[in-house]
């Protein structure tokens, strides 16, 4: 009974019309957003898939029944079809595909996280600086952004990987270099509307430096829309990374990267369909999850977006 009562009062505390503190107001806002989001069924499915990916990545060692890199007996265990022993079958080196897919979740999560960590600050910095200062700074920065946008993303990533050399680290750098321009555009547009707001003028009159205004007052206001945009892009990032892996320019064997695994199974596709199919299902599920999550977030947080 006491739990029920405290839950009731917590929900009341969160939804009160007169929050007593700034923290309460913020938490209340977040709670209402969350309530809205839980009403979005597809968005919740997306969230569940993404959480599942995170859990699988964390507990990969526990979940995977076999070693992802060391195969079994090459004479008897090559290219076995899916069975209870090997849920997704085995590949040409007698490795359990299910274990490889599970461990691949780590690589996928790493790629997505690192690209987001590298590309978001670059985009934010370029966009806010450009929008805040305007003038020639804006012209120069936006021209550079346009040049990066002028290349199709995968092609530019290909050229960068070609220059840096194949490998998952370089693939991450290449994808990050090609993903920041849309964030910069977005952050700039947001900054332009914030720049002339009264509270920014007030801070300027108090003598705050440009750096302080941008970092302390403009960036936080741009952050939420940029984060939504990054979430929406994550499926694209996964697909680009898988594409690079498939072309042999991303993760290198024997790393269990999903795109590279599809490339490995390509030779056997006609007789042993599961080798290339299983990692593809993993890529599809995860990027569908990110797409659903992103769509749901946009529906909730941006009332202007298409319904």
């Amino acid at each position, binding site marked *: 009974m006491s739990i029920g009562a405290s839950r009731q009062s917590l929900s009341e505390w969160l939804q009160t019309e007169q929050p007593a503190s700034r923290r309460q107001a913020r938490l209340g806002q977040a709670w209402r957003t969350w309530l809205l989001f839980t009403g979005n069924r597809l968005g919740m499915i997306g969230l569940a898939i993404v959480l599942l990916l995170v859990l699988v990545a964390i507990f990969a060692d526990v979940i995977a029944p076999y070693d992802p890199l060391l195969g079994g007996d090459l004479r008897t265990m090559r290219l076995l079809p899916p069975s209870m022993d090997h849920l997704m079958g085995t590949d040409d080196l007698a490795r359990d595909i299910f274990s490889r897919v599970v461990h691949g979740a780590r690589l996928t999560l790493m790629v997505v996280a690192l690209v987001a960590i590298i590309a978001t600050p670059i985009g934010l910095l370029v966009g806010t600086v450009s929008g805040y200062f305007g003038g020639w700074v804006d012209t120069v920065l936006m*021209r550079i952004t346009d040049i990066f946008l*002028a*290349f199709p993303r*995968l092609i530019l990533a290909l*050229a960068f990987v070609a220059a840096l050399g194949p490998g998952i680290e370089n693939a991450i750098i290449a994808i990050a270099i090609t993903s920041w321009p849309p964030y910069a555009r977005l952050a700039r547009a947001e900054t332009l509307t914030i720049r002339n707001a009264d509270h920014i003028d007030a801070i300027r009159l108090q003598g705050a430096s440009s750096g302080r205004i941008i970092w302390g007052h403009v960036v936080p206001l741009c952050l939420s829309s940029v984060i939504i945009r990054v979430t929406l892009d994550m499926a694209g990032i996964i697909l680009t990374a898988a*594409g690079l892996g498939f072309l042999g320019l991303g993760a290198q064997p024997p790393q269990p990267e999903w*795109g590279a695994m599809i490339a490995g199974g390509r030779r056997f596709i006609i007789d042993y369909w599961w080798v290339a199919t299983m990692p593809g299902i993993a890529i599809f599920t995860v990027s569908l999850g990110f797409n659903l999550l992103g769509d749901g977030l946009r529906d909730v947080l941006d009332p202007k977006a*298409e319904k």
Partner: protein
Amino acid sequence: MSVANALAEGRSRALPAFLGKTIRLLATIAVTIFGLLVVTFLIGRVVPVDPVLAVVGDRASQSTYDKAFVELGLDRPLYVQFGLYVEKAVTGDFGQSMLTKKPIIDDIARAFPATLELATVAILIGTLFGIPVGVWAAVRQGKLVDQVVRIVGLMGYSAPIFWLGLLGLLVFYAKWGIVAGPGRIDISYEYGFTPTTGLFLIDTAMQGQWSAFRNVVSHIALPASLLGYFSMAYIARMTRSFMLNELAQEYVVTARVKGVAEWRIIWVHALRNAAVPLVTVVTLSYASLLEGSVLTETVFAWPGLGQYLTNSLQNADMNAVLGGTLLIGIIFVGLNLLSDFLYTVLDPRVRRRA
């Protein structure tokens, strides 16, 4: 104040405005292409591949090596090298491919029609299906059709294209045998006609080689439908949102009050207004097909630009990679400009404001 006067005044004001706009546009193109050159040049500079060894081979003597080093201009300062690079690029000289020993520009000219043909068929499929489906979803907003369209579209956004391509080959080629396998055309037909345009569908049809034509169709069907599906997902989604916007306008209410038939309101009144931004969407997805085709061409052994690029990449043929990248970038810029231009031409509101 006569009308003629006003007209003349209007024209004299309009002309500089138009000139100014054109100059600004040309400047933008020039800067962007210059930027493309800088980026490709810099990428070319940081490659770990030694360009001299690539030319002379690793068994050349030191003196041959030094001679080639100077011939390639590698002893000069970086900005001079960049100047040379730009000068050559402007005349269409991207150097020689190490793989085919031919000028890059010739290689690209040979590969491009294959990509163009594939992308064009794909965009036709995407547009012909995407627009009606999008309109349908908008009219039945929130109903089952709308949900199905949304989910089919989301699947298109989420599936790796190379994987769908492999599965497509497995099912439709290997299992059912209803389409032809990888490649553009069977070798037995390849020399039966003269490739004048390089677009095999047109070449074979014009020369009346109908069995070759059927062969080309069965080769292109699968990759083009696949790419078409991806652009359909995007076009349908955008059509739906533009149509929802239009159907909420007051002129639709007026038309309904007047008693205009519902199909006419949807397909004539609303769609015509939605068509303007749609042109931009179609042009841009045409451009992005060039990109998506890199993976598709690899899976289907399609001898186009994408396959040329990946082949060169895997053989560290940097001249070819950079030439191809630059060219695709320029095509991309061109199509972007085209979509801006079409927007201005088609939408009188934009034209007047400009």
